[in-house]
């Protein structure tokens, strides 16, 4: 874990509200880890690490002032990381992701045997190179018709997590969770997640948790 300053190289728009942001620098990280990036706002924001066209990259959904600044204005961005625990599984896995986690897929492909399924609420603006389903109805249809895998990993919105859990309960399924973070390093305790083994924290104990460990309510 270290502090750094990343130089933005370019951005590509993926869909209505999601961009891929490329950086000049490289970072050594494991699939599943994330970084905290500074914006003009008062609290740094977490972004899962990945690659695009061999560059260090993150996917960013523009939700407010901070993410808009990274996509549109930022040149140099302070941050710290890599954070959280990396993920490693043998066997054949399926990564079910939203466009917000697109770059993460590249990191998984480099280290593990995975297929990728992208579920996007709005049309994507270029071929992503992965099977992509657009719209909730198509996504649900796809989930009902998934081939067997040794394990599954879901990284997307809370809604996506919930429908995937409904369909995949009983399988070995993992979730890369998102929760508001203050520090990203286990200090502030803001990103609590209530599990069957007590309170955990997304930043320090995760961000990836096994589905049957979580309290789904």
């Amino acid at each position, binding site marked *: 874990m270290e502090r750094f300053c990343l130089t933005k190289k370019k951005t590509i728009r993926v869909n209505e509200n999601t961009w891929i942001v490329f950086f000049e620098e490289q970072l050594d990280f494991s699939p599943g880890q994330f970084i905290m990036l*500074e914006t003009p706002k008062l609290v740094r924001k977490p972004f899962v690490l990945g690659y695009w066209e061999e560059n260090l990259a993150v996917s960013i959904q523009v939700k407010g002032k901070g993410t808009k600044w990274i996509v549109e204005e930022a040149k140099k961005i302070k941050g710290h990381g890599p954070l959280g625990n990396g993920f490693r599984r043998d066997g054949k896995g399926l990564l079910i992701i939203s466009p917000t986690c697109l770059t993460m897929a590249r990191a998984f492909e480099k280290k593990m045997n995975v297929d990728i399924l992208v579920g996007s609420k709005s049309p994507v603006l270029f071929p992503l190179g992965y099977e992509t389903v657009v719209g909730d109805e198509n996504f649900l249809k796809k989930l009902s018709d998934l081939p067997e895998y040794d394990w599954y990993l879901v990284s997307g919105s809370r809604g996506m997590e919930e429908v995937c859990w409904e369909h995949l309960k009983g399988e070995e399924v993992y979730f890369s969770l998102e*929760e508001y973070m203050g520090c990203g*390093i286990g200090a502030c305790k*803001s990103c609590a997640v209530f599990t069957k083994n007590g309170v955990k924290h997304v930043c320090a104990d995760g961000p990836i948790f096994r589905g049957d460990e979580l309290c789904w309510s």
Partner: protein
Amino acid sequence: MLELKPPLVLLSGPAGFGEYLKLIDHRYVGGIILKTVTLNPKEGNSTPRMADGDFYVINRIGLENPGIHEFVENVPELPVPMIASLGGDSFEEYLEVARTFKKVSDKFCAVEFNFSCPNVKEGGLSIIKDRKRWKTLIVEIRKILPDSFLIAKIGIEGIFVEEAAEIVVDTGWNGITLVNTVRGLHFEKGSMILGGLSGPLLKPIALRAVYEVKRRFPKLLVIASGGVYSMKDAKEFLNVGADVIGVGSALFKDPGIVEEIGKYLMEVKG
């Protein structure tokens, strides 16, 4: 006297149990006030536990901590002087926490008692409402910890800070941390978050609190806590008499600010 070099502390809450020291050059950190520990372990509140607005951060962590017994068994070993932060849910709990802490008190350069957490139903802010009882409590704590450097963490609710400072001085305590977060309400995606406000919005309030207390009690050690995000902020707190500069929520924006302020304090304070 508490000698911290530089006179800069990472504040209880954001500073956790020392995790930020992996990101900050220790030379510029005079000390760390650890997360508040209570008698029994606390799971903390449901999520969301934090949000940020344009000029503030709001949190409702709810004092998640392992409890004093676990804490004394596993005191963190950190490369900077440590100040413990202790809390309780009742008069008796504060005393029990103090008694248990005594076993390890020599590992700490000071101990701060949190009399102002806005996010717990009992203890915290509510303990200070009954002045006489609170005074009795801090007299009893002093008896349990006769050799410790005792600091009271006080907010602006439930008591005037100068009134609290007078009680702190009269009972032979050594320092005061001003101020704790202030109760606030924030809307996030249509839901209300009720918690403690920190960040830039708190700075004028904290400056006034430090000013009022230091004016009346110049010998009382004052740790400034509230809205320090820059060297300019640190200077302003020094101008109103703060002895130690606390950095809390600013860690969430840029941990590097600690080094900048620490270097400045080394220059002006030696």
